[in-house]
């Protein structure tokens, strides 16, 4: 990650400090005054809980009042290692997050290309594309539960009208996970589209025109100009989307509560149930620890890639 200017103008227009020694010290003092009000709640309600959350994974803590908390070392992790339910949910989480991130990328790329072209109806599409973004996740889950409803939903209604027997989309073992993935993609399209669109608009039109003059078709221009230019955006968006989806909770909780038979039980949901229904917060925290390690691995891959790109750009 480069520390030089996140906005191009921030680093370049800032004055080269004249009296550095005195000024640097004054700046440090100012920095402390400016930063403390926001830093305090972050430390108390985010950093400390995070660290104690990590530590709780090494204890036998429960939610029962007056229960003693003992350090039990790696006990939870040893138990967790053999916990098929957890690893099952881990696998489902990866399938869920991976499918949603990739399908969202493909759909959003298509939509962004359409919105970046000379078609009509762009205003309307922009507004409609915004809807899933603004809707509260609970409402999204409620609407899709209605759509998937086997007895009154429009999906089965349409199927029945053309003579195909209906399906219990969220209740059937084989369709539940694909069904929630579709909802995840629907909810994720706006953000990714907007980011890709912004990336596309920073590509100069001259490049495309020059290529068109040279006889390159739309597909070749997409493949050789748009796609390479968007590479950093695509990579960042997909990596972050994967992490967000892997950590997501509300959508699936309201849609299926992890069912049927744990087929949509993603790790955050499993951890939540372990902590607040089974009241085993030590064990649940250990699960959280494993999730953090997994996410850190993914994140470091992302950062390494980012670092390489920065190096490449400078060379």
């Amino acid at each position, binding site marked *: 990650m480069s520390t030089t200017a996140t906005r191009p103008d921030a680093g370049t*227009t800032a004055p080269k400090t004249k009296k550095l020694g005195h000024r640097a010290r004054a700046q440090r003092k100012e*920095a402390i005054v400016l930063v403390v*009000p926001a830093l305090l709640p972050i430390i108390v309600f985010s950093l400390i809980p*995070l660290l104690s959350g990590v530590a709780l994974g090494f204890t036998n803590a429960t939610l029962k009042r007056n229960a003693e908390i003992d350090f039990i070392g790696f006990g939870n992790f040893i138990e967790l290692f053999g916990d098929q339910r957890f690893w099952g949910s881990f696998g489902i989480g990866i399938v869920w997050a991976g499918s949603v991130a990739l399908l969202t990328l493909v759909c959003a790329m298509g939509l962004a290309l359409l919105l970046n072209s000379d078609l009509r109806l762009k205003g309307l599409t922009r507004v409609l594309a915004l809807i899933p973004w603004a809707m509260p996740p*609970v409402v999204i889950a409620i609407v899709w539960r209605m759509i998937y409803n086997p007895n009154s939903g429009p999906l089965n209604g349409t199927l029945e009208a053309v003579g195909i027997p209906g399906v219990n989309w969220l209740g059937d073992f084989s369709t539940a996970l694909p069904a929630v993935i579709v909802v995840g993609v629907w909810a994720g399209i706006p953000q990714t589209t907007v980011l890709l669109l912004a990336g596309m608009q920073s590509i100069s039109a001259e490049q495309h025109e020059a290529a068109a003059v040279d006889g390159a078709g739309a597909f070749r221009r997409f493949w050789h100009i748009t796609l390479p230019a968007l590479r950093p955006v695509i990579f960042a968006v997909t990596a*972050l989307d994967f992490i967000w989806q892997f950590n997501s909770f509300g959508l699936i909780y*309201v849609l299926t509560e992890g069912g049927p038979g744990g087929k949509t039980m993603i790790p955050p949901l499993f951890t939540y149930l372990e902590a607040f229904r089974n009241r085993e917060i030590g064990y649940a925290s250990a699960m959280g620890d494993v999730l953090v390690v997994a996410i850190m691995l993914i994140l470091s891959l992302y950062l390494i890639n980012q670092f390489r790109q920065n190096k490449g750009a400078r060379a």
Partner: protein
Amino acid sequence: MTSKRPWWGTVLMYVALAAFLLFLGFPLLWLLSASFKSTSELNSLAVNLIPAEWDFSNYTSALERQNLITAAGNSLLVSIATMVITVLLSMPMAYALARLKGKLRATGTIWILTSQVFPSILIIIPLFLVLRSINLNDTLFGLILVYVTFTLPFTLWMLQGYVAAIPAELEEAGEMDGATRITILRTIILPLLAPGLVATAMFTFVSAWNEFFLALVLLQSPELYTLPIALRSFLGAEGQTQLGPLAAGAILATIPSLIIFSILQKKLTGGMLAGAVKG
């Protein structure tokens, strides 16, 4: 761009556009139509977007039956409080992040970005214990505190982008005239930052208004439920749910964020881009 596209290409693109419009727009339209349908029509498999009979009673019964007004009031209180506190706290730090260089800035930036990716479940367990030990679990005040903490990183990131866009020369000019830092902040930076502050505030409001998971963990008393939690409690076993009032309540919960998002649309793009893409 170029007009060399063959006619079938144009047709294909409009077909794709129509498919996207249908996919993205249909759920909201279905919800809207469900909120005006009678119970018997809601329980049939007939696929009609326009209700056979317009039934407005879903809205009144939604508001009467399920303490929805209390929940909306709670949501409004929590969202506004979160918005005000978050913006007040983040303004100075965002300024520091944008203007200062060196280790502090780098550390702050890395923390902001990584805090976006931690699973909230790992933080909420100890947070629940902390809040319980000071008797703030199951209170709206506790929820507000947690919301402020969870929205701060992104708010800081958005705001520092807006500060960075204000030329530093303007401040230098003020400094030459002998103005103190506070005066410079108040008279030069604040007015220029106003649009950014408004955008950030609106974003914070929507985040709190839509939030589900933290409220689910922290609130147990039904009279404290925020709108998403109250809506979720509408859902009974399949078939027992009163679909009409549920749809009406869902529409009511969506309207504020829909309005704010349509205003914010363009401004968010910049903030998200700065946050997600340029590390």
